[in-house]
């Protein structure tokens, strides 16, 4: 595998698109404003110049037909990468996704395929409000026939997107805006990060934390803080939400006996429910403490910064949750909290890192 440089998630995704379009003329991008000056959160820089408007297809604002058109084209061997700036826009196209994309291979007895990729961005950010900040991964993950992925590390933002484009099944790729800003090593050229399941991102022995997308980055930072106070957390990056392969999670829980999940979406009927249920069912005797779930507060996303203070699962909430689970002393938890606060360097809670200039 070629040498790695440090790129952010957006640059990494851009390379995935670039490499894929260069290798395979059947790959094309479609969406609304995909080559505007914002370059789709920085993931399409220069692609229009390189590949032209035929392969950077600007679409009418009509998500339902757009999705059906993508599926129809994919049935004929094209590989469309449909990209929408917010998860919510695809709510208009769920009939196409659930009935056609997810089922076409099955319902044609294997005759047809729909190798489409649908990139959806979770609009966490300043004041996005009720219609622009949903995540909804567990909704997609309910449907057999779909693959659902959420990359966290920049390396995956590239390698998993390439894998998705090369996959013969329809792939929903949910990209959290804040992973677009996060840097990490990214190999040059073409490579694939397989869509085969979770990865252990940090080993530990006291508790298993299963996180997804941006929460992985937060969990890793929190795990550092916990480590300093003597609590050893294993952090697992879920990566692939459907088909769901929890072998690694079960193995980890067999070791730690404790499980915390962090959802990017709402907790009720979320991914954490599925993970906890599976672990309760299959690692029953290994569990030392009741498993716990973190995720969004159970109401729509309010816009005002004062209302979202604890809407998203915070490092503090994770520290509390893990601390209680392992029976940590209050001094330990205080220290871990203080460490996290220092780590954030006084940034307000609605800013992921200093490069973030919100709100759009």
């Amino acid at each position, binding site marked *: 595998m070629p040498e790695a440089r440090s790129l952010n998630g957006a640059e990494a995704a851009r390379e995935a698109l670039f490499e894929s379009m260069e290798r395979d003329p059947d790959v094309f991008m479609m969406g609304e404003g995909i080559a505007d000056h914002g370059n789709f959160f920085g993931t399409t820089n220069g692609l229009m110049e390189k590949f032209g408007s035929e392969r950077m297809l600007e679409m009418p604002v009509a998500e339902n037909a757009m999705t059906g058109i993508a599926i129809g084209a994919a049935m*004929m061997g094209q590989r469309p990468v449909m990209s929408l700036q917010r998860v919510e826009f695809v709510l208009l196209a769920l009939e196409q996704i659930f009935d056609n994309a997810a089922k076409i291979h099955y319902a044609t007895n294997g005759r047809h395929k729909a190798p489409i990729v649908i990139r959806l961005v979770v609009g966490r950010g300043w004041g996005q409000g009720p219609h622009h900040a949903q995540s909804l991964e567990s909704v997609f993950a309910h449907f057999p026939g779909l693959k659902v992925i959420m990359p966290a590390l920049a390396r995956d933002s590239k390698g998993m997107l390439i894998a998705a484009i090369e996959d013969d099944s329809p792939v929903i790729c949910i990209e959290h805006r804040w992973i677009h800003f996060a840097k990490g090593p990214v190999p040059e050229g073409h490579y694939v990060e397989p869509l085969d399941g979770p990865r252990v991102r940090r080993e530990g022995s006291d508790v298993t934390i299963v996180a997804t997308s941006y929460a992985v980055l937060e969990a890793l930072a929190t795990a550092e803080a916990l480590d300093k106070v003597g609590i050893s957390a294993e952090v697992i990056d879920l990566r692939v939400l459907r088909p769901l392969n929890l072998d690694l999670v079960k193995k980890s829980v067999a070791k730690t006996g404790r499980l915390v999940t962090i959802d990017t979406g709402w907790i009720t009927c979320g991914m954490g429910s599925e993970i906890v249920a599976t672990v309760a069912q299959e690692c029953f005797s290994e569990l030392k403490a009741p498993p716990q779930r973190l995720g969004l507060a159970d109401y729509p996303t309010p816009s005002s910064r004062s209302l979202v203070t604890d809407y998203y699962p915070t490092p503090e909430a994770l520290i509390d949750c893990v601390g209680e689970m392992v029976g940590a002393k209050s001094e330990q938890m205080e220290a871990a909290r203080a460490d996290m606060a220092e780590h954030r360097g006084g940034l307000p809670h609605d800013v992921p890192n200093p490069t973030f200039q919100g709100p759009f």
Partner: protein
Amino acid sequence: MEKHVTQINDETRLGLYREMLRIRLVEEAIADRYGEQEMRCPVHLSDGQEGIAVGACMALRKEDKIVSTHRSHGHYLAKQGSLKAMLCEIYGRAPGCVGGRGGSMHLLDDEVGVLACLPIVGTSVPLGVGVAYAAKRKGEDTVVTVFLGDAVMEEGVFHESANFAALHSLPVVFVCENNDLSFYTSLEVRQPDRPMTDIAKAHTLAVCELDGNDAVTVYEAMNGAVKKARGGGGPSFLMCNTRRWREHCGPRYDYELGQMTEQEFEALRADCPMAKLGAQLREAGLLDDAGEDALRAELGKEIEEAFEFARNAPFPELETAGDHVYA
């Protein structure tokens, strides 16, 4: 839309008649046997509407594609989809066109370009447009026909799809089977009073309204639309007026449900696409009783055999039920 008057030859006219008769006999046979409860899936029969299926598909090449709806038997058969595979599908048998996974509302025959017949109203429309878009990208000269009912004109996805097809001048022919009904609800309860073709025109589709119960007219209009599409001239919309004879879903005639009187029904049925062309053929000396009998015998035999085949075909193995979830 430019009028392409095709010198339709006798062979084609006879062919149209034959294909209509074939569909008619298949639908009647399904209706006859449906009560046996061996075809355990919903069926939306299309007798009375054969003129459109046959007229449209006769103007297509084998490589051309069609997509259709819940009421697709006629389209599938007119495009020469395998009869045996269709009946096996309806009987839930392994040699069914999708192995018994879909039933009557999921017909498919890739060999002859029947790509997707799907039960959700409007759902196949953008698929067809996407197929046409792929053809255009690849520089193929395939034409895609999208069959749709009048109710599809109410679904947003039709408009979204027509907009895109027109914008990119795609090789698509939308064939609207206007039978006035959605379930048992008349057009006037669902759409304002105006020609539906206005909608298609507004989307800049080339438009033609015609008697869907006249297979020759449909064939000729379709020929024009297909030529235009194949030549890069963009999408057309044929509005074909017709009536279905049977209940929305199932084997009974509409009057048997009390939706209309038997007289009303007979009046409606008098405008039969098959009878219409049959009379012309007889007048032209191309068909007589003997010819008709021979045709019926030949088709009857084929159909009987296909039913036999389907009824005796094996069911799909339970162990395969989970196959092909992922490609």
